């Protein structure tokens, strides 16, 4: 990579770090971050592929309240840099995915450090609020956001400082059973993210939806969009029928309460 490419990679890392906490534009999602790093470093399709496989793993990682989820931003940025610098091409994706996981944990600690620093920052904001100085509150908000950006940009710059020949040597010294095993592990580790999401959402009434989705997915002709359409329709139908059943039930009760239909029939006799 030349100097301009390296600067662009650090810029992408900065954006990913900001978004890791803001959670708005989603630059920190592996699908976006790896693609952008691939784009600026001239390995677009490689970045896209890595982003796709990491995205599957990071599916259930979400910032909820003060809860700690592994950090997708550092995982995505660092593994993309390693993949590009390692020069192993598509065959390096499995290893890069495996390396991403410990990095996701490291990113977590970095987030905690910045969040602690932010506690001091809001106290500074308090003192400016007393003076009615809104400009400085804006400034400190931006400082806090930039700290989150630097959280990823600095490790990214450090990784880039390692000569690519060293990265290459380290990666090629890994035995094949290890890299193959990591690729297999990468295929299975996706389950953890799904398990996290299911644990959050599962209730008695939604399990049948899960079972139908699982069974239908075996039909390979159904694309993901088709499956989404089926899922959405089922949910809408369920809610609509539930409304109808509620209303219909009450009107039936009212009818049988007065006994009119039955009375009419008897009268006819």
């Amino acid at each position: 990579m030349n100097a301009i490419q390296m600067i662009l990679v650090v810029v992408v890392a900065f954006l990913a770090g900001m978004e890791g906490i803001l959670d708005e534009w989603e630059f920190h999602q592996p699908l976006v971050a790896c693609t952008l790093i691939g784009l600026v470093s001239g390995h677009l399709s490689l970045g896209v592929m890595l982003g796709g496989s990491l995205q599957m793993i990071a599916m259930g990682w979400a910032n909820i309240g003060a809860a700690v989820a592994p950090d997708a931003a550092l995982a995505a940025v660092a593994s993309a840099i390693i993949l590009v610098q390692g020069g192993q091409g598509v065959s390096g994706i499995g290893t890069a995915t495996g390396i991403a996981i410990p990095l996701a944990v490291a990113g977590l600690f970095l987030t905690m450090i910045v969040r602690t620093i932010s506690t001091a920052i809001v106290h500074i904001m308090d003192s400016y609020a007393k003076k009615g100085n809104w400009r400085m509150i804006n400034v400190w908000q931006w400082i806090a956001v930039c700290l989150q950006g630097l959280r990823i940009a600095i490790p990214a710059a450090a990784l880039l400082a390692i000569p690519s020949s060293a990265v290459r040597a380290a990666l090629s010294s890994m035995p094949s059973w290890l890299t193959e095993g990591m690729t297999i592990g990468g295929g299975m580790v996706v389950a953890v993210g799904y398990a996290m999401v299911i644990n959050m959402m599962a209730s008695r009434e939604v399990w049948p939806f899960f079972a139908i989705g699982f069974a239908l997915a075996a039909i390979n002709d159904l694309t993901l969009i088709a499956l989404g359409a089926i899922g959405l329709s089922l949910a809408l139908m369920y809610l609509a029928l539930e409304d109808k059943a509620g209303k219909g039930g009450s009107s039936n009760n009212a009818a049988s309460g007065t006994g009119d239909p039955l009375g009419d029939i008897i009268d006819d006799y």
Partner: protein
Amino acid sequence: MADKKISLTKADRFNVMWHSQFLQGSWNYERMQNGGWAYSLIPALRKLYSNKDDMSAALQRHLVFFNTHPYLASPIIGVTLALEEDKANGAPVEDEAIQGVKVGMMGPLAGVGDPVFWYTVRPILGALGASMAISGNVMGPILFFVLWNLIRIGFLWYTQELGYKAGSAITKDMSGGLLQKVTRGASMMGMFVLGALIERWVSINFVPVVSKTPIQKGGYIEWSKLPDGAAGIKQALIQYNNGNGLSLTKYKTTTLQNNLDQLIPGLAALLLTFLCMWLLKKKVSPIWIIIGIFVVGVLFHLWGIL
């Protein structure tokens, strides 16, 4: 001055919406989103309170604890804007009323945002993009990025306007049936898609061979009887017929995976997911589970199981 009503224009409200994208920027362990909340309101407060003392009071009023889902903060911001506007125009809106609205709405709304955005919309769009991206298709990330941000910005703007126009009356609606229905509907669709994703994307392939039975003559391609060169390749492909014709070898090998797939495809993936759920419920950190799965992957590969 007093008889002239100050009101927030559409541009002001848009500016607030834009600022609200940085709500979590100074997320901290003490008061969580308070800095970002004050930052979001500043464009409006500047217009409403030209007096420095009023501004100072307003800033302090909005630097108290606040935390909700970053997108569901928008309807709360809308209501707060309506209240602050009234207050600035001399209506007797107490600080406590503004606090009450914020606190009353942030809890229930956070409960809506997590299942809808983090557990339904993002996994679905993410899986859609990722399934295209894995084969190197750049449309995958583009689709994810564009769709996500269209939905998000549309939601931020629309719900903030809704909150602003409805004012504090919205608090009643928000706790009512509609929101609960949205949350439940999202969970249903989310679970459906999760079931599908587990089948499609958790890959486990057990390689041990369970049985190896010879195929009778005529059931497999007899390579020695094929013509030479390209004609032979063509003949072999015709006989193979995309796997529907003759077998490539003299033996029919059945791996453990073939047997499992006959029960239901993806059974192993499903069981692995249930195991992870159980471990997570036992308060095992997801990070340890992830590391454990990698270790198992490497060991089982060494032993020839995976």
